């Protein structure tokens, strides 16, 4: 949390000038937005700022702020950036408004796939899709004549080969930071092996052969990682790649563009994207989308202006200028080499992140806190999973889900 927080707090951009070059209308309403801070959001918020009077906050910890900020009346932010996971609390609390009227008024050009519908009402406008997929150093793999791994057994074999030679510090990188990242890794692996998280009535069901197999694979992988894997998040792994310290990793598609950024990367052109390795059922990854929501607690005039600003932020011009920053859903996007891995992963059947399960939040937290004890050897796999189920049960009972 901390590194990202500092970086993104610095990146908070306060733009409220009257420059409206590149914007079809002049915005006279004070608007504020709260979104995540990765490259795609930088592109979108910069583009929104061109309309004037838009203040954007980019914060990787946005999900901790959003529910309370949107529950205030009037809402502290008019525009919010969400993903499929982070939209749920806003939706449950009724703090985001249906957009059907605004879409019919200003959003005729939106693609049908961009409209996120819940019970027939449009609740969000999606802008991009994201997943974690395999990235590898093409030069390293071809040097040792290793075929591109497609399963975790092949990844382990490739890592064992690379480890014999002194070409990189660690064959594998991994976003295994305890907490959200580690929980996400297990979710990828478990869904890839065909597992399901809940039984009847939101009861947990992860302590089974699939769960144990998924944990064992994770532990096998960590043997080839930096020993400090329990503190490495996406940014850390991205930098390890850029500095040539790791040869392979499963990393977010939204980080792919950074590999070829000559300003910070020493491995420009050497990192190739491919599908996430498949488990016994499907690709071990989850599909996410990111998009924009508008707060309930503001006037209709504000909402009108906010929606027009959002449409400017999500226009074709922005996509053409930032084509490789994400896998955009917006018209004008051309899928390049950076998107190949994300698309291949989706083709291999990666499941959507199961955010629609009401217990998923508590489950993700319990996984993120509980798996480290297995990886460090404090617990065996079955005990770790049983303890995670127990932690989930207490949390779910307290929130009334069970």
């Amino acid at each position, binding site marked *: 949390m901390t590194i990202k927080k500092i970086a993104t707090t610095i990146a908070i951009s306060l733009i409220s000038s009257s420059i409206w070059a590149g914007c079809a209308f002049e915005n006279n309403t004070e608007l504020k937005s709260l979104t995540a801070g990765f490259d795609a959001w930088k592109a979108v918020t910069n583009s929104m700022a061109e309309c004037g009077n838009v203040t954007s906050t980019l914060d990787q910890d946005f999900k901790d702020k959003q529910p309370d900020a949107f529950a205030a009346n009037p809402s502290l932010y008019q525009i919010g950036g969400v993903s499929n996971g982070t939209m749920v609390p806003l939706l449950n609390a009724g703090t985001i408004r249906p957009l059907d009227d605004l879409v019919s008024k200003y959003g005729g050009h939106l693609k*049908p796939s961009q409209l996120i519908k819940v019970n027939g009402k449009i609740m969000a406008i999606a802008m991009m899709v994201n997943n974690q997929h395999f990235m590898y150093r093409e030069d390293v793999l071809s040097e040792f004549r290793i075929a591109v791994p497609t399963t975790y057994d092949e990844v382990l074999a490739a890592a064992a080969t690379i480890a014999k030679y002194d070409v990189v510090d660690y064959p594998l990188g991994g976003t295994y930071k*305890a907490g959200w990242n580690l929980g996400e890794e297990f979710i990828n692996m478990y869904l890839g092996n065909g597992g399901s998280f809940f039984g009847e009535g939101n009861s947990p069901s992860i302590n089974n052969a699939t769960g144990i197999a998924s944990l064992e694979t994770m532990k096998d992988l960590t043997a080839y990682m930096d020993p*400090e894997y329990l503190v490495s998040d996406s940014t850390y792994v991205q930098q390890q790649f850029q500095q040539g310290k790791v040869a392979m990793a499963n990393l977010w598609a939204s980080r792919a563009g950074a590999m070829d950024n000559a300003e910070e990367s020493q491995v420009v052109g050497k990192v190739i994207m491919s599908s996430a390795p498949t488990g016994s059922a499907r690709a071990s990854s989850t599909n996410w989308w990111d998009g924009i929501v508008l707060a309930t607690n503001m006037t209709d005039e504000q909402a009108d202006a906010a929606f027009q600003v959002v449409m400017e932020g999500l226009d074709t011009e922005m996509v053409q200028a930032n084509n490789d920053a994400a896998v955009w*859903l917006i018209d004008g996007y051309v899928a390049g080499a950076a998107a190949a891995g994300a*698309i291949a992963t989706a083709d291999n059947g990666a499941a959507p992140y199961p955010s629609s399960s009401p217990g998923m939040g508590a489950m993700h*937290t319990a996984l993120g*806190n509980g798996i480290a004890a297995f990886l*460090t050897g*404090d617990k065996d796999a079955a005990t770790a999973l049983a303890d995670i189920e127990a932690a989930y049960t207490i949390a779910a009972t307290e929130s009334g889900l069970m």
Partner: protein
Amino acid sequence: MSPKTFLAFIGPSIVMMVLFIALPLASVLKQSFYVTQPVYEILEVETCTPNFTGQVCVVDIKTIPIIGEDGIMKTKTSFVGFLNYQNVLEFPRVITAFANNSWQQFMAIDFWKALRFTLSFTLITLPLVLFFGLVIALCINNVAKSIRGPVIFISLLPMIITPVIGALAIRWLFIGDGILTAFLEWWLVRDIAMFGQAWTIELMMMFYRVWHVAPFAGIVFYAALQTVNQDTVESAIIDGASRWQKLRYVILPHLMPLIVFVTLIHLMDSYRVFEEVVGFSSQAHVISLQWLTYDFLMLDQTGNRSISRASASAMLTMIGIILLLIPVLRGVWIDYKGKRL
């Protein structure tokens, strides 16, 4: 001072303390016996989302909170007695662990794991802070008057730095191939991962805390050193006392009340250890009681937080601090009574 003047002086701070300390504490205490839950309904919901090729619509049976007519989620609050405390302390698992005679199983329970670290952190750093505080004070006291100002300023720097920033600074020195790790690797000719196992992280956290707090102890002791009775020191020297004897029998007794003061402050502060856990992202290996409360309070991805368990855990932290302070306060009390007689 007449009682009236006394009251006029102390009145405002009593009001403030009731308002900002006693009342919040009472509300947390009350909260820890209740559970507030949203009222759910079970509904069939159709959700349409994009994937890479187009749009997918799925119909799910979902548990969804009901939103009242005022636009706010409906909740119900119920009294649950000590359930929240049980959920934090997890006694059944403690009993199983003891029955199996297994320290490892005991340490697998979050609260006890956090308590183990918090206590060892507090009790190990305390003597170090006192010792280094004294060393700093004696050093400052013995340097030439002309450079004393700058020396005090430099020795106070660690205390001035915001705790989280200081922890991050130390983290950056050691994480991955940080400067100091790289130096240690070069010096010892072996690969070192300071963040790879629990004990090195604990060591860094304690090092950081001592570095951060010792200057405070130092400046307090330095102030006290200014009031040491010079006649006593001189007569000790005439009596042939060595440097060490002078320190042991003249200076330390004089500093004693302040050593107790620093001990109290440090016990209270370090039992609430938190910045270190966040700064060093140590939660995979070690957690503290305060971090546990924070973790209960954080929203999970579906927007739930465990306020009731957080309240229970906060109350337990307070009880822990009181238990720790009792022996020290008792000593002070006996001392005080002895002087009055």
